């Protein structure tokens, strides 16, 4: 800690920070542009000038840039000094020379950091009489709008895109007062993290193109804290609606999870959940009964009545199938309804075995489940099998930071403060790692890898086991294995916080065991090694924690009625098997918000709420329980799945639940309850204080203003009234502060982590001892591994229009040699028989694939194929 004097008052601050960061941490107002909490200082914009005094006798002082000055003990500065204020106003005046006065038609208006800073410095009168410069704006693809004329050249975009996220197709061009930020030519931005430019840009150069289609000012939006539903990482988001339409997703800072950044799938994958409410006709969000079509117009309770008719008249066996994309609460509710013995977790059998193995490793073994923050701080990483950019995208961004840790340590010791980003990057140059990537095919992180190795999953597992053995001789040896990457074990052993990344995407039990062996071997050597496992869906971990029978067992189970919770079984098992099961069960009831092949086979479909229409809890890959909150007011008959089930319980004469807190109480896990405060105390408004049109919005229906919709499930209110200043992080709907309308207001809020970790390591250290045989290629057959796509693989985001535009056509990846043996080339097609069905795939050549291995895009119909598996391919 350091003691600094600011305008005559003494404060205690973190001496490792720069003065700007220190001032903002004290919630003092000091304008800035180029500094960013996650990207540090470069001193370009000169906006944060303050006057610094040598000692208490120095009255003259000199202007310094706060962001470039350490908050050293004894520092004396003045923010209010007249010269400093005049200079800061002058900086705004310069920035405004060329800034168009188009705020009324600018999407950033009302949440523009440049507006805020302009007001803060007091610059009001334009003295420049010369013409403004203009630029060409580029078409950057379906996610971002580009309006370069608004640019104030803070350089944050290029620093994020290139330096932080490793993108290469975006740069800064030109010089003097003609500096241009964009691509060399129009075209889709390649980075999977391009959407962050919306928040990184302090003004309206990069704005959300999906928001623009249904634009609403920030102050007119109703917000709720949410958890991203599009992969297993559980990034914290703020989602916003107006008039019953979901409008946008923004980042919500959780320092231990996503920090300041999201991936593009998470940011732009929301529109499917919006379309549901936008177009109820098309989506038929009413109970639906295949036997009696008239029911589709009936209200929710008649859906339950239909259901009780089924079950009441049957007295038969009732089973339930849960879902890894439904909340803990809904899964628990179904488990309660059908009884533990008749509840099946809804993961594919392979996923279920992989995830339960992961759970066993994290709960009983000595290595912790790593958070994204832990990954970012890791000083050595070994990736086994995962193409993280496509399976858990935000993790790739964290890994990109981890490769800097070793060099950062050296640079920090050399006296360069770590917030001094420009100096740090100059000193670091391209020094990175260690990061070892062993995967079946090339990944987007290979450019920062110390070494990469391509092999079939079994051979990857052998590599992992061999590395574990080299680190600790107690771990089983792999006979006959030649280490392809030298010094790997040494590099991991030399690290203080090594992390092993693995996951379910290769579908390999030995691989996961090998990852555990490496981490445990490192633990035995006294290293604080962590494990980071990726899982496919937003509540995969929660579903595994809740338990339940295997899906295969459900298909065999005797049942008259099955209730399927938010799950498309055709993505979990072979079509023939699912067809057989659904054909055999007398009554198929499906709760869902997506139209799937499963809903088309159901006798009764009950419209479930999406993540935006309900509140609940998901558990991420790290085992962190986090609460998401409803943002779209309830609309009959759509209800959270657990509410439907609660009504079924009541209809069956049992006790249901009136609120989320009651479900949580029934679940009986105090830690899950603690993920967010209960619905008590003063309400926190979901609407900003400047929300407009409240009394007029529904005037065409009634001139009487309706009371805000009740929300029994959270401490939030569908209102602008209430108490918000000190909302705890899990309950912060949006970042807004007087004078800080942009997302930069985040620094005014509590910056603690949120969510509760449910899994902590145990003591068991016994290594997995089974060593798989080397992978043996077969003639005429290929071991086909799933190829994940950030845009397309995940079911819910895959239907969002902007994501659809970025999706690729599913392909089957082959080695060029194999393709020519089959007589096909790029763009040609191959076919194979699977599950008594012929599949046809377009061929993509990937020379890096191991011999005997092929890759198949995991999207749509291929999900039920049961990858990985052997496939006999022939030319189509």
């Amino acid at each position, binding site marked *: 800690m350091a003691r600094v004097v600011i305008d005559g008052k003494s404060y205690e601050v973190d001496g490792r920070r720069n003065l700007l960061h220190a001032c903002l941490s004290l919630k003092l107002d000091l304008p800035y542009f180029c500094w960013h909490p996650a990207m540090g200082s*470069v*001193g*370009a*914009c*000169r*906006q944060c*000038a303050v006057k610094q005094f040598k000692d208490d006798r120095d009255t003259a002082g*000199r*202007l*310094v840039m706060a962001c*470039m000055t350490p908050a050293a003990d004894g520092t004396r500065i003045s923010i209010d000094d007249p010269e400093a204020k*005049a*200079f800061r106003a*002058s*900086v705004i005046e*310069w*920035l405004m*020379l*060329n800034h168009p006065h188009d705020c009324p038609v600018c999407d950033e208006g009302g949440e523009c950091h440049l507006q805020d800073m302009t007001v803060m410095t007091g610059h009001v009168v334009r*003295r*420049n*009489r*010369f013409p403004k410069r203009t630029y060409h704006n580029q078409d950057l693809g379906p996610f971002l709008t580009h309006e370069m004329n608004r640019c*104030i*050249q803070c*350089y944050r975009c290029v620093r994020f895109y290139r330096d932080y996220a490793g993108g290469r197709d975006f740069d*800064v061009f*030109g*010089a*003097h*007062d*003609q*500096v241009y930020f964009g691509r060399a030519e129009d075209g889709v931005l390649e980075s999977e993290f391009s959407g962050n430019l919306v928040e990184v840009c302090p003004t309206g150069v990069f704005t959300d193109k999906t928001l623009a289609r249904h634009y609403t000012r920030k102050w007119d939006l109703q917000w709720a804290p949410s958890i991203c539903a599009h992969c297993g990482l559980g990034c914290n988001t703020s989602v916003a609606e107006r008039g019953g339409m979901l409008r946008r997703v923004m980042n919500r800072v959780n320092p231990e999870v996503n920090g300041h950044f999201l991936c593009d799938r998470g940011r732009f994958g929301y529109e499917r959940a919006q379309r549901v409410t936008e177009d109820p006709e098309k989506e038929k969000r009413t109970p639906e009964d295949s036997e009696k079509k008239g029911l589709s117009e009936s209200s929710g309770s008649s859906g339950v009545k239909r259901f009780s008719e089924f079950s009441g008249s049957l007295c038969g066996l009732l089973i339930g199938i849960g879902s890894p994309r439904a909340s803990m609460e809904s899964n628990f509710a179904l488990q309660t309804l059908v009884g533990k013995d008749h509840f099946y977790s809804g993961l594919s059998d392979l996923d279920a075995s992989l995830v339960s193995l992961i759970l066993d490793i994290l709960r009983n073994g000595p290595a912790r489940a790593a958070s994204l923050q832990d990954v970012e701080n890791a000083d050595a990483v070994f990736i086994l099998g995962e193409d993280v950019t496509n399976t858990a995208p935000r993790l790739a961004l964290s890994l990109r930071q981890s490769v800097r840790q070793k060099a950062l340590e050296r640079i920090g010791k*050399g*006296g*360069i403060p770590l917030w*001094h980003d*420009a*100096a740090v990057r*100059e*000193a*670091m*140059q391209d020094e990175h790692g260690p990061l070892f990537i062993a995967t079946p095919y090339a990944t987007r992180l290979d450019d920062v890898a110390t070494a990469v190795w391509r092999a079939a999953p079994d051979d990857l597992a052998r590599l992992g086991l061999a590395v574990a053995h080299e680190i600790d001789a107690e771990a089983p040896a792999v006979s006959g294995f030649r280490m392809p990457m030298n010094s790997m074990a040494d590099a991991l052993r030399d690290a203080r916080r090594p992390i092993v990344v693995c996951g379910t995407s290769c579908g390999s039990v030995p691989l996961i065991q090998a990852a555990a062996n490496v981490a445990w071997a490192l633990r035995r050597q006294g290293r604080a090694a962590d494990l980071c496992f990726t899982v496919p869906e937003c509540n995969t971990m929660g579903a595994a924690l809740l338990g339940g029978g295997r899906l295969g067992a459900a298909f065999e189970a005797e049942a008259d009625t099955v209730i399927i919770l938010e799950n498309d079984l055709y993505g979990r098992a072979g079509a023939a098997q699912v067809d057989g099961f659904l054909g055999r069960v007398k009554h198929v009831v499906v709760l869902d918000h997506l139209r799937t092949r499963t809903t088309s086979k159901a006798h009764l479909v009950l419209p479930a709420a999406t993540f935006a229409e309900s509140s609940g809890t998901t558990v991420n890959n790290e085992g962190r329980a986090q609460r998401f909150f409803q943002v779209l007011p309830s609309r009959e008959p759509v209800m959270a799945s657990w509410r439907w089930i609660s009504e079924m319980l009541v209809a069956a004469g049992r006790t249901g639940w009136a609120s989320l807190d009651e479900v949580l109480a029934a679940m009986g896990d105090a830690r899950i309850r603690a993920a967010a405060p209960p619905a008590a105390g003063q309400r926190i408004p979901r609407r900003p204080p400047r929300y407009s049109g409240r009394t007029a919005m529904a005037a065409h229906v009634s001139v009487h203003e309706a009371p805000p919709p009740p929300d029994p499930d959270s401490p939030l209110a569908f209102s602008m009234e209430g108490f918000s200043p000190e909302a705890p992080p899990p309950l912060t709907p949006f970042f807004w502060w007087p004078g800080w309308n942009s997302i930069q207001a985040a620094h005014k809020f509590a910056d603690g982590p949120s969510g509760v970790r449910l899994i902590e390591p145990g003591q068991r250290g016994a290594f997995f001892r089974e060593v798989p045989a080397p992978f043996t290629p077969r003639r005429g057959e290929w071991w086909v591994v799933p190829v994940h796509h950030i845009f397309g693989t995940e079911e819910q985001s895959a239907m969002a229009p902007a994501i659809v535009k970025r999706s690729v056509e599913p392909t089957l990846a082959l080695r060029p040699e194999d393709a020519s043996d089959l007589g096909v080339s790029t763009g040609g097609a191959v076919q194979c028989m699977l599950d008594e069905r012929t599949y046809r795939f377009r061929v993509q050549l990937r020379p890096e694939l191991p011999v005997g291995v092929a890759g198949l895009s995991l999207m749509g119909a291929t999900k039920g194929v049961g990858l990985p598996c052997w496939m006999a391919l022939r030319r189509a």
Partner: protein
Amino acid sequence: MERPLTKNLRSDAPDLAETERVGGYQAARKALREMRPADVIDLVKRSGLRGRGGAGFPTGAKWSFVPMGSDVPHPKYLIANADEMEPGSFKDRLLLEGDPHQLIEGMIVSAYAIEANVGYIFLRWEYRVAAQRLALALRQAYERGYLGRYIMGSGFSFDLHLHVSAGRYMCGEETGLLNSLEGKRAVPRSKPPFPQSSGLWGKPTVVQNVETLCNVPHIVNHGADWFRTLSLSEEGGTKIFGVSGKVRRPGAWELPLGTPCRRILEEHAGGMKDGVRLRAVLPGGASTAFLAEDQLDVKMDFDSVARAGSRLGTGTMIALDDRTCPVGMLANLERFFARESCGWCTPCREGLPWVQRILDSMEEGRGQPGDIETLQRHGRFLGMGLTFCALAPGAVEPLRSALTLFRDDFERHLREKRCPWR
């Protein structure tokens, strides 16, 4: 009067044999064989040599910040800044074209002093002749074993490369040069960290002006005391002074540091041409403040010129006469600086074009009330420490002094709504 720097200058550049005949590479031999690196640094410190690129930082002191020994980051780099682009300056060009081996020898000795094993000559793009001659001289030096591994049988190795710049003023700024050399945009770096600790590719680096490096062999050959006696002031050595403008004999001359400004103008440049009268002088290139006619007795050394309110800079002066509009001259200069701004920091990127446009509009008779105040504000807010590097502070030095010296001329432009010289 001794002229160590220019005595062997030839319009067609002496070749290696000729250079050796007049004592070339003797200093390198002496330093590498008889002196330790610390001895060389100490000698240069005692000589009082100050950087000739404009800032005048003591050379020996600069070198002493370089981490020494075997367990420091390596390789270390020595860079000759030959990106001479300061308007009015052409002194380095004389040395580069006229005696390239002198620079190479200076770099060998200087690199030895800081234990740098790799060197670059960062040359201005337009200096084509110099590029050819340097390339030839480098080849000859390699052939004779003056460059490369184990130079002259010593344990010291030094590889020297010629890099031709992409041609921007910013590339001549010490840290902008480093970024440019790394293939990045020529934007400056903030100091600290200084290049001596984290420079080219993050390694310890010393960037030195051509003229500075050319002095080093002579100091080694003749000693620090000899070097001090060359000058007419406390600061050691000679300096190449240049004069441009409407003088009778524009040119450059190697003269003792501390030679009075008026003597250079009158004795060497021959005074003003007939019919024109001297009004003021930019003493050290375009980014130094005007010295008025009555200040011309100032001794041309770093401290004396600073006391007079300007800077010695590159020592290449530009004379302003009474037939030239000072506003027009400034407009021309500021157009250069505005164009050459790298666009990194706000005040320079946005402020200089504004200044230029105001000056242009004054020249065109469209100046407005308040313009002078706006220019004054820029003179203040584009000052040292407020911008990222020294480009803008240098650019407003002539502006600030002109607003004082020629205030009437500015006001006449506004009052008469035209340029009185047109």
